[in-house]
Each structure stands twice: as C-alpha cells, then as structure tokens.
C-alpha cells in the first residue's frame, strides 16, 4: 500500500511539474500575453461651465401646515463644491446672527426666510459672507429625517457627549456614531446641551453634512443610487435647481474628496437687541472666509 502511495505521489508530482512547465511561459517568448492587467481610473464632473458651485442649505423650522419657505431658517450652511479639484467647503452661520436683510433692515438671519423667502436668505448670506449662492435648498426637519433614512443613515464623528431632555434623552456618545434620520435631525438641532451653544450646533450640522457626503460617495457607483437620492431631494425640498441640475450637483458631491473638505463656523459675540438675544457676527471673519473660499471652495483657516 505504501509503495503504491509513493508511486502515486511521484506521478502526481511529475504531473504538477509538467503542468507548471506548460502554464508558466518563458519571459522571452511571450512578452505581451502574460502581462498583468493594469487598471487606471479617471473621473470628472463639470457643472454649468464653472469650477465652483455654491449652494445655501437651509433647515426650515416650519411646523406642520406652515410653508417651509416662509418660516424661520434655523440651520444655515453655505456649501461650495469645486468640481475641478474635488474640494468642498461649508461655512456655517449661527441662526441668531444679526445681519442686514435686503429690503428689511437688520434682523436675525433666520428671519430672512420668513420675510423674504429663499431669495432673501441668499441676499442676507451674500451681505454677510460676500458669496451669492447659485442654488438655495430649503428643507424642513421631518423631510430631512426622511432623506437621511432614504440613503441608509450616516456616520458622524462626535467630539463630545451631549444630550437634550426633549430631543435625545439618552444623549449622543463621543466618537464615531451611526445616525438614522431622527438622530441625524436631533444631532443637528440640539443646542442646549452644547457648551458653545449655537456655534457648536452649527459645527455639528457640518459633521452631519460630512456624514451625508461620505454616504453618498460610498454608494454613488451603485446603479440608481444617485437617481433615487435626487428623487427624494425633489420630494422633500424646495429649490431653484431643476431635476437635471440636482443630478449634476449630486454627481459633483459624489466626487468630492473627503480629505479636501474644510469647514468653519462664523464666530460672533452674544448680546441683546432690545430683549432679544442675538449673535453679533464677526463680519470681518465672515468676509475673509468668503474671500478665501470663493475661487476654489477651500478654506485655509477658520
């Protein structure tokens, strides 16, 4: 039995060697056909013939039955996307910032939406930061929740634990946390549990935007993902962008390099106008951020 096995093994070894001799060609004879497949990759998106597009994202606090484009704009992020370099930036503005609203004098910036609609909000933002957005995207918080759920939730990096007795009793842990629609809304809305109040809340909104971007980027090559995303945005927002333009913006977002995202919240001093608590924004800083980001959607500092 042992001799038989030895014989079989010897023959099997010979077979393997023979096969190897056939399979591995000499490099001198077959120069092209045995080369490894080398795959290279390129991507690019050009939207509207300009390198940078600016979108003002507004979270309206409209209650059921209220028109969301004629309510207060509580979450305000001016987002720039550079389709040439893949960089992106978000400049956050605290909702209580005391600014000039075109045709309405000085008011809290969140009331610009109530007084003058999306166009008025864009004007208020231009007065403060110096950048006129190409598009204004207004949504309300329940719609925002639906949109986050529709893309399968997001992951954010939370720098500190915080909670809110009404929106999130058990609170948010420090670290990387996964958020569904409701929790993404709560994470972006809570102010009272944060030491920096409105400023920290605006920074949290930017963390949410990073999470949304990461989710879109990771799923963008799934057939139909971007189309479904655009459909849900169309269903849940009011915007001056056409469906085709939304599609172009979504593809541009998908191609943003997460390492090239810079964010900053406009600083300010808390004070009072009459009895109302307001933020007097650091206009010089806001203008500097606008000047820096306008050409290439990249901030050098905050």
């Amino acid at each position, binding site marked *: *039995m*042992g*001799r*038989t096995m030895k*014989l*079989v093994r010897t*023959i*099997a070894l010979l*077979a393997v060697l*023979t*096969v190897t001799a*056939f*399979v591995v*060609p000499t490099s001198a*004879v*077959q120069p*092209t*056909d*045995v*080369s*490894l*497949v*080398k*795959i*290279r*990759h*390129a*991507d*690019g*998106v*050009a*939207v*509207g*013939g*300009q390198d940078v597009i600016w979108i003002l994202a507004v979270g309206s606090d409209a209650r059921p039955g209220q028109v969301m484009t004629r309510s207060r704009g509580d979450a305000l992020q001016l987002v720039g996307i550079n389709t*040439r370099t893949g960089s992106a930036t978000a400049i956050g503005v605290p909702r209580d910032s005391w600014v000039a609203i075109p045709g309405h004098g000085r008011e809290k910036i969140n009331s610009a939406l109530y007084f003058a609609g999306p166009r008025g909000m864009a004007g208020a933002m231009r007065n403060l930061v110096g950048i006129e957005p190409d598009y204004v995207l207004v949504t309300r918080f329940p719609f925002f929740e639906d949109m986050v759920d529709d893309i399968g939730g997001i992951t954010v990096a939370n720098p500190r634990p915080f909670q809110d007795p009404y929106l999130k009793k058990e609170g948010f842990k420090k670290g990387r946390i996964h958020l569904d629609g409701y929790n993404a809304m709560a994470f972006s809305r809570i102010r009272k549990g944060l030491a920096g109040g409105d400023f920290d809340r605006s920074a949290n909104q930017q963390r949410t935007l990073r999470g949304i971007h990461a989710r879109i980027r990771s799923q963008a*090559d799934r*057939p*139909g993902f*971007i*189309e*479904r995303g*655009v*459909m849900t945005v*169309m269903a849940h927002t009011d915007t001056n962008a*056409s*469906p*085709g333009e939304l*599609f*172009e913006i979504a*593809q*541009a977002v998908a*191609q943003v390099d997460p390492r090239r995202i810079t964010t900053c919240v406009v600083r300010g001093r808390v004070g009072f106008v009459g009895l109302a608590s307001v933020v007097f924004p650091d206009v010089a800083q806001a203008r500097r951020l606008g000047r820096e980001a306008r050409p290439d959607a990249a901030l050098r500092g905050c």
Partner: protein
Amino acid sequence: MPRPSAGRVHRARRLVGLALVLLVPLTSACQPTAEPSAAPERLSRSDARATLASHSVPTKVGIHRVHGRLPVARRKAVRKDVGRVVDRWWEAAYLGGTYPRSSFPAAFPGFTAAAEQRARADKALLTNQTAGPRIDSVTPRKRSVTLDVLASGRQARAVTAQFVLRFDTSGPRTGTTTVRGRLFLTRPRGAWRVFGYDVAKGAR
C-alpha cells in the same frame, strides 16, 4: 507488509494518466499564445480595414431602471439617443479612425464644453492615445450600455450610463483592452450631453 496488487497499481496509474490527459488540453487552452485564435487578423499599418472592423459588434443598450414616470416611447428614445452619444465617443476615442496614430483631436463628441475640457486632461484613459502609435487595428468584442434614468414630468431629465467596452488590438501592442465605468448625462437644450465620467481602463 502486504504488497499492493498489480491491479491497484495499474488503476492508480490509469487515474493519474487520465488526470494528465484532462489537464494538458486545459493548460494548453490557458497557455498564452502570441496569436490567439480570437485575435484579429494583423493588418498592415496602411490598412484602412481597422475602421470597418469597429462596426462588427453592435452596441447593446438596456435600461436598468427608470426613476420616476416615463412613457414607453420616451424610454425607447432615451435608449436610442443616449446609446448614440456613447457610441460616438467610443468611435472617436477608441474604435474608429485609422491606426496607428497618436492624435485624437476630436475624441469627445457629445460632451459638454466643460466636460470636454476635463476629459482632455484624462486622454490617457478616455482615448487610445497612449497605445495608439503601437496599434495597427482595433476590433471591438463587447459594447454594452445600461441606463438608470431620472424622469420627472414624464420627461427624461438625467441618465447614468454604466458601460463596458472591450476591444482587441493588433500590431506591436497586441492585446485586449477593457474600458468600463459610468457616464453622467443631462439634456440641457434637448440633446443629451455628457457632463461627467467615472472611467477605468485596463489592458492585457
């Protein structure tokens, strides 16, 4: 120690022999050859048949899904029109024209002006420019396009075209090239235009 029976040894030898008989044709099939049977006929450098050969495989265009409502007739129109845009790019960038050549001056028909500008910077992938001088002829093997259509108001507004293009090249640069990826199209003034791309290219 009992000796193995002659029959058993014989059977073992037969099994190994059978295995070898089965393996040899397999390995021969896997063995790379300088002139694979599927390779196109090698053409002389002045042979214009390279252009004609590019039309031998039709482009298959299908719809993966329509997001939104779109009447059947318009679905067909989208397939036809977008398929034509993709085809025009493939012809201009890879399959058509005479080889060898190193110049691809009009490789992006159907791209927006801004997308064309981007694409020019990626010509190494989006055309045959790098291998062109070492190619005598190009023969398409697979031309496949699958569309995801975004529709609103019963009109097609945007399309993602997933595609695979595979072609053989002959000449000093003999081999098979696969180009696959996605093209993003909208219809700004009634005509489908490519405004973005995500393309990978590999050759062996």
